[in-house]
C-alpha cells in the first residue's frame, strides 16, 4: 500500500496521457485527428439532413425510398469519404512528406472524397440538383477533408517540435548531470585526500607544539593546544569525511548494489539491516557490466540515504529492509529497477511536509529520469519508500565501463 507525495496522482495521469500520445506513430496520429474532425462534419451533415427531411418536401420519385434507407444513404455518404480519405492518407504516408507534396496530395484526396460524397448524397435524393448546389456540396465536403488532414499534419509537426525540444532538454540535463558527477567526484577526492592530509599534518604540528609548551612548564596551555588538535581530528573524521561521502558515496563507481551494501554497513549497529536482491538483479554482473549510469546510481543511493536518514532520525527504527529487483521495461532493451526500502520506525512526524521536502525533490529527479518515487506505510510497521527507475540494459557481450 503506497501513497504519493503531494499531487502525484494528477501528475501520473498527465504522464500517462502524454506517454500514450507519444507512443502513437505519426501516421496513426494523422489518421486519428482526421477521423475525429470528419466524424464531427459527418454528424453535422446527418443532423442537417434530418432537419431538411422534416421541412423540405422530397422531389418526385424520392418518396418511394423508405426513411430508413434514406437515413442509411446519408450516413454512408458521410462515412464512405471518411474511409476513402483515411485509406488514402495511410497509403500516401503524408506525415513523412514535404509540405508541397502534403498540400497537393491533400487537395487531390479532398476533391476525390468530396465528389464521392456528393454523388452518394444525390443517389439518396434520387434527382439532379442545380449545378451550383452540386459545386457547393462538393466544396463543403472537400474543405472539411482538407481541414481534417491539415489539422492532423499540424499535430504531427507540433509533436515533432516538442520531441526535439524534449531531446535537447534531456541532452542538456544529461550533460549537466555528467558535469555534476565529475565535480562531485573531484571535490570528494579533494576533501578525502588533500584536505584530510592537511588537517592531519596540522593536528600533528599542534601536538608537537603542545609537547614544547609542556616542556616549558605551561601544562594548562599545552592541554589547550592538545584540545585544539583533538577538535581538528574530530572535524576531519566527522565533517570532512561525511561531506566527502555525501558528495560521492563510496563504491558508487563500482556498482549500485555494492554501494548500497557499503551504505547499509554504516547504519548504526543497534539497527538490523537486510539487503535482498531479486533473481533478475542477482543475474546482473554489476561490476564488469554496469547497468546503471553513475548519475542513476547516485540518484538511487540518494533515495536510500534519504530513507535511512528518515528511518533513524524521525522514526527511531530498529530494522531497515532493502529489496531490489529488475522488471522488463516498456520496450525491448529497457528494464526497470524497483527498490523498496522498509523500516519499522514510527514513520515521519506529524505535519510531514518539511520531512518530505527531501523526498519531493528526489521525486522530481526520478520523474526527470522517467521513473517514480512513492512513499507509504510499511508492512513491517514504519515507513516504505519505493523507487522505479527505467534504464537501458547493457548486453552482456558489449564491453563494460568497469
Amino acid at each position, binding site marked *: 500500500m503506497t501513497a504519493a507525495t503531494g499531487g502525484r496522482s494528477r501528475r501520473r495521469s498527465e504522464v500517462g496521457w502524454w506517454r500514450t500520445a507519444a507512443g502513437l506513430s505519426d501516421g496513426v496520429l494523422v489518421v486519428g485527428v482526421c477521423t475525429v474532425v470528419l466524424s464531427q462534419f459527418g454528424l453535422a451533415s446527418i443532423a442537417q439532413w434530418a432537419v431538411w427531411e422534416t421541412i423540405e418536401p422530397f422531389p418526385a420519385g424520392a418518396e418511394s425510398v423508405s426513411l430508413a434507407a434514406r437515413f442509411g444513404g446519408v450516413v454512408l455518404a458521410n462515412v464512405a469519404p471518411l474511409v476513402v480519405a483515411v485509406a488514402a492518407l495511410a497509403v500516401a504516408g503524408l506525415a513523412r512528406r514535404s509540405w508541397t507534396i502534403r498540400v497537393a496530395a491533400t487537395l487531390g484526396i479532398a476533391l476525390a472524397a468530396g465528389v464521392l460524397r456528393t454523388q452518394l448524397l444525390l443517389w439518396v435524393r434520387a434527382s439532379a440538383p442545380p449545378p451550383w448546389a452540386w459545386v457547393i456540396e462538393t466544396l463543403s465536403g472537400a474543405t472539411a477533408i482538407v481541414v481534417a488532414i491539415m489539422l492532423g499534419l499540424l499535430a504531427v509537426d507540433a509533436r515533432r517540435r516538442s520531441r526535439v525540444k524534449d531531446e535537447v532538454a534531456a541532452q542538456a540535463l544529461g550533460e549537466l548531470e555528467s558535469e555534476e558527477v565529475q565535480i562531485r567526484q573531484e571535490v570528494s577526492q579533494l576533501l*578525502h*585526500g588533500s584536505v584530510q592530509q592537511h588537517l592531519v599534518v596540522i593536528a600533528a604540528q599542534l601536538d608537537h607544539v603542545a609537547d614544547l609548551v609542556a616542556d616549558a612548564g605551561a601544562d594548562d596551555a599545552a592541554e589547550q593546544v592538545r584540545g585544539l588538535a583533538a577538535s581538528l581530528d574530530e572535524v576531519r573524521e566527522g565533517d570532512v569525511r561525511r561531506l566527502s561521502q555525501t558528495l560521492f558515496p*563510496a*563504491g558508487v*563507481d*563500482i556498482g549500485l*548494489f*555494492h554501494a548500497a*551494501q*557499503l551504505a547499509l*554497513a*554504516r*547504519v*548504526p*549497529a*543497534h*539497527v*538490523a*539491516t537486510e539487503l535482498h536482491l531479486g533473481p533478475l538483479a*542477482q543475474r546482473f*554482473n*554489476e*561490476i*564488469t557490466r554496469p547497468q546503471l549510469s553513475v548519475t542513476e546510481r547516485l540518484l538511487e543511493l540518494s533515495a536510500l540515504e534519504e530513507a535511512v536518514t528518515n528511518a533513524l532520525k524521525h522514526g527511531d527504527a*530498529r*530494522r531497515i529492509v532493502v529489496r531490489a529487483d529488475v522488471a522488463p521495461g516498456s520496450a525491448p532493451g529497457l528494464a526497470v529497477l524497483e527498490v523498496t526500502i522498509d523500516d519499522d520506525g514510527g514513520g515521519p512526524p506529524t505535519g510531514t511536509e518539511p520531512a518530505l521536502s527531501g523526498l519531493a525533490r528526489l521525486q522530481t529527479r526520478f520523474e526527470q529520469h522517467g521513473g517514480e518515487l512513492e512513499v507509504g506505510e510499511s508492512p513491517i510497521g514504519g515507513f516504505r519508500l519505493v523507487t522505479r527507475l527505467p534504464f537501458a540494459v547493457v548486453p552482456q557481450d558489449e564491453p*563494460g565501463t*568497469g
Partner: protein
Amino acid sequence: MVKRKILRVAVVEDEGLLRSMLTEIIEAHPGMTVVHALPDATTARRELLPGTADVVVMDVDLGDGNGVALSVVLQRADPELRILLLSSHNLMPLVLSVRNEASSPWSYLSKRSSLDRATLLRAIERTAEGQVVLDPELSRRAVARADSQLQALSPAQMSVLRLVATGLPNSAIGETLEITQRSVQNHLFAIYQTLGISSKEAYPRVAAVLRFMQETASA
C-alpha cells in the same frame, strides 16, 4: 591451492611512492617475490597474465578504472589468483558484496588505518593460503549488529573471531589473548556451532570471517 616455495605477488597501485614501498617490503620477505609492479588497470590487463602471480595486492582507486572490476576480470581469467584489496576509503564490506562475482573470497586492508609491514605480509601469506584477512583496525572497531547471530557469541568468542578475521593463526591468537591454543580451538568450534558453520567445511574460518563481515557495523 598448492603452496609454492616462493610466493609470486603482483602489486597494482597508481601512487608511485606507495607502489615502491609495497614492492620493497614484499621483496624483503624471503618467501615472496614481486613479479609485477603495475601503475594502472590498462597495464595490469595487458601484463598480468594467468598463471604469472599467486596474489595481487590491488588498489581500488586506479587512475583508469577501479581495482574491483579489474580483480574480477583477472580472477575470471585465473581462478587460482587471490586478491588482497587496498583502499583509502573504508570499503571493507566489498569483501562481502563481491563474493558472488569472485571465484574465491578476497581480503581487504585499509591504507589509512593499520597498514604496516607485518600486517601486509601476513595478509598476503594468509590470502595466498585461501584465507580471508580483514583490516585489523576496522575489525577491532566493528560491532555486532542487532538481531544478528554474532550477538549470541560470548565476549571471549567475539575476541577470537575478531583476531581470526585479521588473519592471525591460532598460536598468535592465543598469545594475544593470553590463552592456550586448545582454548582458541574450543572457542572456534563454539563459534562455528553458533553461526551454523560446519567445521568440516574446506574453509570454515573463511565462512566465519564472512559472517563476521556480514553481521557487523562499521563503528
